[in-house]
């Protein structure tokens, strides 16, 4: 007779990070074994994209990762530009940077809120999601959509920023900077939070790269690696910013060693600060000019044959698009590498044994597992 009992975390469970499920075998209060179960959100994007024209795919790709859709648009556009051999206007690069960083802030705010909420600070989630809405307001002003923007296109961005964009964005950034100490008091400097989060759900440093951990989770493990610096895209090569990484956690006292819930949260909080800095610089340095390459016949593109792999640094980690073209009107293959693919399945399954049931959901939230990028 089985000694362990089974717990399902998800799909219909507050501790599930979206529509996915973890099947846990537990004994007492300890997880013995875990299995990630995905496929609840599978829409067959890659199949659908093979059936659509290059341009028709733009509205499709942004649906792949819901909390941060812009990186999909950016990566897809960059892949197409790469195959086409286009160089996009300078202003468009800066606008892309601004949009991507705004998206990063909104995603991080939500993630930090969810991590805190999964440990019980619902106030943090309420604040985080409430403040994220101000960024969505900016998006609405710029692009017309709250969540899905379809703003970044192959060849640049759809249209220029509105006239009052600078004031709007600066206002929100000022507000966020004002709010940050409150978040710190509530979450990262909260003694109970430190007790719960430090040293829990550790991704060991020596295994992190081998397991395919990327993004903030990798930086929390102690690597100063960021694709915005390694392979600069948009306007990141012209902008000065820092990569927060363990153990340089700035004002947060280092209470843990390595990538645990606490450091992962702290890194995200610090990245928000850096994003604010990037946006301010981009707004200042942004040149005037066109934002979109003049390309006739949007729907009759023929993309030259070839292989292209393009990666962007999303709020969750490396987000890659592998696009293969045979010179036709439709892509042969678009393969999306979501950062959660490794975080959600392999890393979670490996670090789960020995975790407390109470710590399982916070660990999943702090790795920022997003199921739609796993199964697409």
């Amino acid at each position, binding site marked *: 007779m089985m000694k362990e009992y089974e717990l399902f975390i998800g*799909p*219909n*469970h*507050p501790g*599930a990070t*979206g*529509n996915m499920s973890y099947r846990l075998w537990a004994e007492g209060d300890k997880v013995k074994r875990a299995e990630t179960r995905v*496929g*609840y*959100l*599978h*829409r*067959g994007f890659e*199949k*659908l994209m093979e*059936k659509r024209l290059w341009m028709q795919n733009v*509205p*499709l790709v942004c*649906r792949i990762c*819901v*909390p941060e859709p812009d990186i999909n648009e950016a990566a897809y556009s960059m892949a197409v530009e790469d195959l086409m051999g286009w160089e996009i206007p300078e202003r468009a690069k800066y606008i892309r940077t601004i949009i991507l960083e705004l998206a990063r802030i909104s995603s991080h705010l*939500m993630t930090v809120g969810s991590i805190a909420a999964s440990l019980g600070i619902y106030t943090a*989630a*309420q*604040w985080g*999601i*409430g403040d*994220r*809405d101000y960024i*969505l307001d900016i998006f609405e002003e710029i692009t017309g959509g*709250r*969540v*899905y923007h379809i703003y970044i296109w192959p060849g640049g961005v759809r249209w220029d920023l509105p006239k009052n964009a600078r004031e709007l964005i600066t206002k929100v950034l000022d507000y966020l900077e004002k709010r940050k100490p409150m978040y710190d008091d509530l979450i990262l400097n909260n003694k109970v939070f430190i007790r719960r989060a430090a040293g829990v759900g550790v991704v060991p440093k020596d295994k992190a790269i081998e397991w395919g951990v990327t993004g903030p989770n990798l930086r929390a493990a102690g690597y100063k690696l960021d694709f915005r610096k390694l392979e600069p895209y948009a306007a990141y090569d012209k902008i000065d910013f820092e990569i927060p990484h363990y153990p340089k956690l700035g004002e947060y006292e280092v209470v843990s060693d390595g990538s645990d819930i606490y450091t992962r949260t702290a890194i995200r909080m610090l990245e928000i600060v850096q994003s604010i800095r990037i946006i301010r610089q981009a707004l200042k340095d942004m040149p005037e000019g066109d934002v979109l390459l003049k390309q006739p016949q949007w729907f009759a593109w023929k993309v030259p044959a070839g292989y292209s792999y393009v990666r962007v640094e999303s709020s969750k980690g490396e987000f890659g698009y592998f696009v293969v073209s045979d010179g036709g009107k439709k892509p042969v293959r678009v393969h999306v590498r979501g950062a959660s693919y490794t975080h959600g399945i392999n890393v979670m399954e490996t670090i789960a044994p020995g975790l407390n049931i109470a710590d399982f959901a916070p660990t999943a939230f702090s790795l920022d597992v997003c199921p*739609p990028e796993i199964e697409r």
Partner: protein
Amino acid sequence: MRQEDWSKLARIMSKRSLWMVHFCTGCGAMEMPPVLTSRYDMERFGMISMATPRQADVLLVTGYLAVKTLKRLVQVYEQMRDPKYVVGFGSCTINGGMYWDSYNTIKDLSKYMPVDIYIAGCMPRPEAIIDAFLKLMDMIDKGEATGWKKYHKYYKQYKRNQKMAFSYRLDEVKDIEEGDGK
């Protein structure tokens, strides 16, 4: 008091205390947090999200449904207690929306479970969601939100359709066992 008065009172009360199932079936779930939190605050109307279907009154289908999710959704729906209401969220639940030719998503939710109210859009704005819920409250007040009765009445048909979708093959589904749902 007469029976009708009681049920009228019960309807008035239950419309102001709709508890939702916490189930993000699709990308529409992204607009649920803003609706529930400080910006739009649905708790003003007594709406909160509950952890389990046993405790809840409203099933919110937030977006496209993979067949695998539909199985779970039916399970969740049947575990809820009457009266229960279903809200279809986004274009995908109406006709498949963006994924009209996807092999893995169902195209019309009302074939598989009774939907009381649909919200159009991809994705619907929070204001639209609030409006839909207020309409649902209105319907409950008037006694028009009778999807759960419909599910009992046409249980066999719903069950057959669900089975057809689950098996991915229409020819395999022949007979459906008796029953009237839970």
